[in-house]
């Protein structure tokens, strides 16, 4: 029943799209004021999608297995929470979520843009509707979440156990708010470009939306990363996996766009560049969806895939690209004269240089992700592009990038003087000395580590100092930059200081090394509704006789029947102790992995700081004068 309502609701939603387009064309030509009918219709469409989404959730809650999506991804023994989160833990449901966010953002946009011109609002609405219709058709044609199966199966197939996790339950909605949020940026940029309205006022108006999706995207990536850290069970938090890269690319584009908008807002420069960035942000989100959903890539987090879906998104994606190219070249007016106003030592320049680096990082990630596909098609040879590639190409460039991040905010708009401030030099020397000492004491490769540390510390000190000294400083910017320096520092130290032991242990055995003693005391068993768990008890003693007890587990899920290993993590301010236990077939021992991961919590915290900077500027009216 709920499924049926959901399905009809989807059809109505699609119909309202056509109504909206009809009315907006009429309104665009005829009337002076924005027709309030359109707003109501947009709300109606949003309402239909909500009903449809609720229908799917209810089907999941009731374990209505006559619905194919529910049958494939749910099971009666699952806890309610995971029944609900299962709604968007699969391809069909997550697309419905996309659609929900698309319509939600459009509705909010119309509500919040009342002071904008009628033509601009209608055109934005029009472009957004194109995207919405595309997704409606995609959903109904290739991935209908309400497919009916008869006879009704008695039991569902269950949700993939690694998705049965609280962080991963909220990760997709938040990530999609970021991904899909960029659609409204895309639509309104196209609208503004068509009307030749890319100007300071527009920059101020669109900045909020950019910030909003940026905040959600950052949080979404953070959640995904935390999830990978404790659930995938090997203590890493970023693998340069294609799916992660795909979320990083729009993030990089959005971050660049955010900085560019500042220049546009202040100086009325870089209009074309802003248009290009806005277009590429959403295009990259779509491209990511294509890469993940079509199964063209090999990844840890692949969705169930189907070439037909891939083809649809591919065609849709390229139609959007060509549409935006068309608008960009035929409607958008290029500015020429304005560029002459740039002075080499100014805030604009520093932002431009930062843009330059961001674009470079984006290129590295993009090429690294899709190059294997190209090579395979062209020469049918298969290669892997993994972390070493990204590290080699990104880390050296991080050094000047960090430096610009520290110096840039110090410069003035339009024209800065060459006055080299003593304090900045002193801070630099201190950072250098500090990193040099640390690296020597740590007995690590001196050159690259100490240089990188120096610049990370430099940004750290400079932005830390700004919190106390500057009076009319831009607090959000400072939070974000400070957070970034903290992030780089934590990752560096985490990398340098991580320790680990991998060994095979039987119950009752003790592993000894110079630093640790691991005592595998016993195992117990726990039975839950949806899984059985074998829990090991390990007593770890370090050289100073500190004792830590860790209880990693092995979960045997009943539906589907999959064994996962559950890490036990003792979180601490300075270091996480991380232990996993793995099942080895046909042996009486377990494979034990014990890791000490310093500053993990600082990595999460610094990303939160960065996000906090973003949130602050969402709420601040005009934070910079």
């Amino acid at each position: 029943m709920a499924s049926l309502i959901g399905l009809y609701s989807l059809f109505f939603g699609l119909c309202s799209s056509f109504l909206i387009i009809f009315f907006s064309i009429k309104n665009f030509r005829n009337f002076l004021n924005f027709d309030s009918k359109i707003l109501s219709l947009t709300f109606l469409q949003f309402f239909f999608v909500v009903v449809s989404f609720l229908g799917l959730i209810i089907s999941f809650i009731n374990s209505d297995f006559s619905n194919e999506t529910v049958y494939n991804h749910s099971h009666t023994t699952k806890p309610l929470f995971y029944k609900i989160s299962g709604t968007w833990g699969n391809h069909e449901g997550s697309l419905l979520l996309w659609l929900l966010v698309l319509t939600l953002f459009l509705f909010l946009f119309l509500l919040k843009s009342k002071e904008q011109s009628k033509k601009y609002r209608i055109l934005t609405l029009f472009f957004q509707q194109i995207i919405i219709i595309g997704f409606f058709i995609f959903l109904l044609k290739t991935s209908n979440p309400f497919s009916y199966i008869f006879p009704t199966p008695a039991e569902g197939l269950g949700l993939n156990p690694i998705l049965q996790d609280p962080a991963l339950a909220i990760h997709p909605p938040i990530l999609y708010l970021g991904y899909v949020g960029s659609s409204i940026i895309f639509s309104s940029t196209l609208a503004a470009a068509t009307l030749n309205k890319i100007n300071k006022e527009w920059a101020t108006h669109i900045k909020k939306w950019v910030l909003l999706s940026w905040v959600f995207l950052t949080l979404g990536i953070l959640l995904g990363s935390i999830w990978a850290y404790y659930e995938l069970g090997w203590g890493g938090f970023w693998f340069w996996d294609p799916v992660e890269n795909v979320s990083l690319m729009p993030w990089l584009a959005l971050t660049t766009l955010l900085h560019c908008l500042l220049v546009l807002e202040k100086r009325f420069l870089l209009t074309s560049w802003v248009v290009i960035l806005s277009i590429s942000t959403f295009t990259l989100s779509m491209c990511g969806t294509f890469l993940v959903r079509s199964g063209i890539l090999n990844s840890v987090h692949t969705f169930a895939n189907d070439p037909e879906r891939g083809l649809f998104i591919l065609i849709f994606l390229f139609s959007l690209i060509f549409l935006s190219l068309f608008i960009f070249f035929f409607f958008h007016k290029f500015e020429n004269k304005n560029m002459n106003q740039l002075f080499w030592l100014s805030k604009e320049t520093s932002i431009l240089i930062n843009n330059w680096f961001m674009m470079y990082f984006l290129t590295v990630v993009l090429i690294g992700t899709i190059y294997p596909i190209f090579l395979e098609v062209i020469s049918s040879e298969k290669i892997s592009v993994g972390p070493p590639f990204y590290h080699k190409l990104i880390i050296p460039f991080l050094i000047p990038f960090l430096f610009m991040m520290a110096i840039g905010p110090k410069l003035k708009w339009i024209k800065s003087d060459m006055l080299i401030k003593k304090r900045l030099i002193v801070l630099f020397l201190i950072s250098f000395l500090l990193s040099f000492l640390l690296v020597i004491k740590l007995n690590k490769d001196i050159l690259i580590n100490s240089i990188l540390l120096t610049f990370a510390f430099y940004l750290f000190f400079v932005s830390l100092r700004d919190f106390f000294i500057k009076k009319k400083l831009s607090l959000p910017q400072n939070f974000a930059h400070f957070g970034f320096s903290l992030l780089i520092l934590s990752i560096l130290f985490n990398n340098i200081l991580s320790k680990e032991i991998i060994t095979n242990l039987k119950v009752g055995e003790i592993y000894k090394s110079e630093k640790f003693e691991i005592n595998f005391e016993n195992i117990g068993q726990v039975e839950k509704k949806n899984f059985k768990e074998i829990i090991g008890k390990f007593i770890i003693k370090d050289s100073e006789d500190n004792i830590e007890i860790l209880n990693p587990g092995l979960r045997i899920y009943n539906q589907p029947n999959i064994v996962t290993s559950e890490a036990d993590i003792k979180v601490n301010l300075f270091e996480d102790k991380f232990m996993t236990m793995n099942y080895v077939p046909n042996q009486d021992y377990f494979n034990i992995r014990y890791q000490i991961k310093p500053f993990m919590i600082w990595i999460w915290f610094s990303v939160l700081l960065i996000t906090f900077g973003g949130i602050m500027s969402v709420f601040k009216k005009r934070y910079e004068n």
Partner: protein
Amino acid sequence: MKIKTFPLFLVIIFLIIFVIFYKGLNNSNIYTPETNLKKNIPYFKVKTFDSEKLIESDEIFKNDKFYLINIWASWCVPCRDEHPFLVDLNKKKGLEIVGLNYKDNKKNAKIFLDDLGNPYDIILMDQDGTISIEWGAYGVPETFLIYNKKIIKKVIGPLDSKKVFEINELVK
């Protein structure tokens, strides 16, 4: 003029990308490795299943015969399916079947052979799976046909009647 050529250039680039993605979609995602044919067989030392004596690989493949090395395990389900084919192949003259018992429990392996028959002329034990890696294998089951110390055919996954036919053709 410049304004005109540049968009055209972009459109062409995007069209190329489109075509490549389109072709990529149709490529299967399952990696089929180029068979390392005509490669010399690896050298290794290994324990035999029966006597647990160390034996060198040169000693096993010393004769002027065809050898079929089959990686199997009692816990591997497809191995059960392909086992009758191996029993059949065992009747062929001039072909010696070498079993490589992969990460198995000896007791279970024995039960497996008692149940389904023992097609192997000699069984080697690969306790930690490293010998299979030496052969460039991915898992169980996997089968290599060897002649003159060279791999001449490789089958990934279980044998079926078509593959057995191909092997028979080669051995002739």
